[in-house]
């Protein structure tokens, strides 16, 4: 394992420390217990948005803390959800009196830790709501799984709910728009090569030179199945089809698209995927109204990509366009 790190156990702390120095104009890093808030938190009268989860997905979540997006990010150890004793003070720190929304990715660990934290914060007199992002169509949402995972859709939820909070929506309204985004967003990912968790020291799985994993998540776990390597257009089709089917996308639908790199894939390849997505959606008569192409929710240095599609309405598009000023997403501000 070769990484630009010092002690594997210090990776998260040192990285967040560096992040805090680089973006001192935007965020405050609270070291013990570890969480990150926007500089001007709490914003009085504004609903606070808190998200978090295991580290290793940067820029998610700390990179999305700032005006028009998250008020706080709570990073756990690499691929390990944070603990309530981080989430509770983060929640308190961003409560401007209008309550706090927890944006939780649907993993057992995240759910349980945020659940406990929400209960305790409520006991401390803070109104807390939670939404559960579960956009990964690679996982069947059934009694026989932990439900669909939360992956790329999280970025879109954070952006749109963040804009709603910024314009002054109350906790109910912010929760409801967040849930509407969750209901309309789906994702699917592919890995060409695994990542290596620092404390594990070996790649999370092994792929032969001619194999890829389809339906991977963001934790270096193997995907749903392994197939022979294909070209970018073929792989893109495999990512797109189940999303289109799940969302029943049809002619006239408007969308926000994210082609996301898993950390080790060059931007040039992501644009090749995006090109094919545009062709395929164009063939279906589905319009791409906004898009992101880049590394937004990663799995360390994994090679691969994910596709996220949100069926968008006017309000979502308006909120999307509202000013956002974070380390990793910025416009209009």
């Amino acid at each position: 394992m070769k990484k630009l790190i010092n002690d594997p156990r210090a990776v998260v702390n040192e990285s967040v420390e560096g992040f805090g120095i680089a973006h001192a104009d935007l965020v405050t890093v609270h070291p013990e217990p570890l969480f990150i808030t926007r500089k001007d938190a709490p914003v009085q009268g504004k609903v606070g948005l808190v998200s978090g989860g295991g580290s290793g997905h940067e820029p998610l979540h700390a990179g999305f803390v700032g005006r028009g997006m998250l008020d706080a990010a709570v990073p756990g150890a690499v691929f390990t959800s944070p603990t309530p004793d981080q989430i509770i003070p983060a929640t308190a720190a961003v409560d401007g009196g209008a309550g706090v929304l927890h944006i939780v990715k649907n993993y057992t660990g995240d759910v349980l830790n945020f659940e406990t934290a929400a209960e305790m914060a409520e006991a401390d007199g803070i109104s807390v709501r939670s939404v559960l992002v579960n956009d990964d169509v690679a996982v069947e949402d059934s009694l026989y799984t932990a439900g669909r995972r939360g992956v790329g859709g999280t970025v879109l939820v954070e952006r749109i709910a963040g804009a709603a909070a910024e314009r002054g929506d109350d906790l109910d309204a912010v929760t409801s728009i967040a849930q509407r985004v969750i209901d309309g967003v789906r994702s699917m990912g592919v890995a060409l090569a695994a990542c290596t968790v620092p404390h594990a020291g070996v790649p999370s799985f092994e792929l032969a030179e001619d194999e890829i994993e389809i339906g991977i998540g963001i934790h270096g776990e193997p995907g749903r199945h392994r197939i022979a390597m294909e070209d970018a257009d073929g792989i893109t089709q495999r990512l797109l089809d189940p999303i289109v089917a799940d969302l029943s996308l049809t002619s006239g639908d408007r969308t926000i698209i994210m082609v996301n790199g898993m950390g080790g894939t060059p931007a040039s390849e992501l644009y090749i995927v995006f090109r094919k997505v545009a062709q395929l959606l164009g063939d279906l008569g589905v319009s791409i109204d906004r898009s992101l192409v880049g590394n937004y929710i990663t799995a360390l240095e994994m090679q691969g990509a994910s596709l996220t599609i949100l069926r968008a309405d006017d309000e979502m598009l308006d909120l999307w366009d509202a000013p956002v000023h974070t380390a990793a997403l910025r416009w209009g501000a």
Partner: protein
Amino acid sequence: MSVADATGPLDAAWAVRWMRGTAQVVAENRALLIDLDRAIGDADHGENLDRGFGAVLLKLDGDAPETPAAVLKLVAMTLMSTVGGAAGPLYGTAFLRAATSLGDTGTVDPAGVAGMIAAARDGIVARGKAEVGDKTMVDAWTPASEAAETAAQAGATAPEVLAAAANAAHAGAVATEPLIARKGRASYLGERSAGHQDPGAVSTALILQAAAEAAGGEVA
């Protein structure tokens, strides 16, 4: 596995020995647990528990709780605030419920041991909603609880009850191998989750083994 040297009543000192023993066995099996989790999860279970029980050791060096319940409650709070992931809240709840079941007793008797394990198991099920056969730590806790209950009713000593539980947990962990996961991260893999033991079930067996060994119980 070996007979531990320690013997005596299941008092606060036993509980402390249990936790120190757990920290040691978890550290020793850190890589194994990471590897099991790497196969069907996200390669962090060993690291998470090692971090958590490492923190427990530090806590125990400071505090000296006076009842077994007080020890377990300290452990519960420490795990909740240091482990994270699924295992943090689940083990946290387990130790919290176990502590509650013990009340303020100074020494745990055989029925108390069985009750403590049942409470821990029920806490995990309450939080995680897994059933037996879902390929989770419940598949170790459930047979452990049943074996403890049976042994206690058959008149076994407290160390013997713990040993029965540990043995059953080990068997339960081994038996998760062919299962297809239906809860937790491994469930994303569908049929590909078969053929590997569940890391949480294995760590459960290690924890109960440490409990028995701390009591001088003989673990097969």
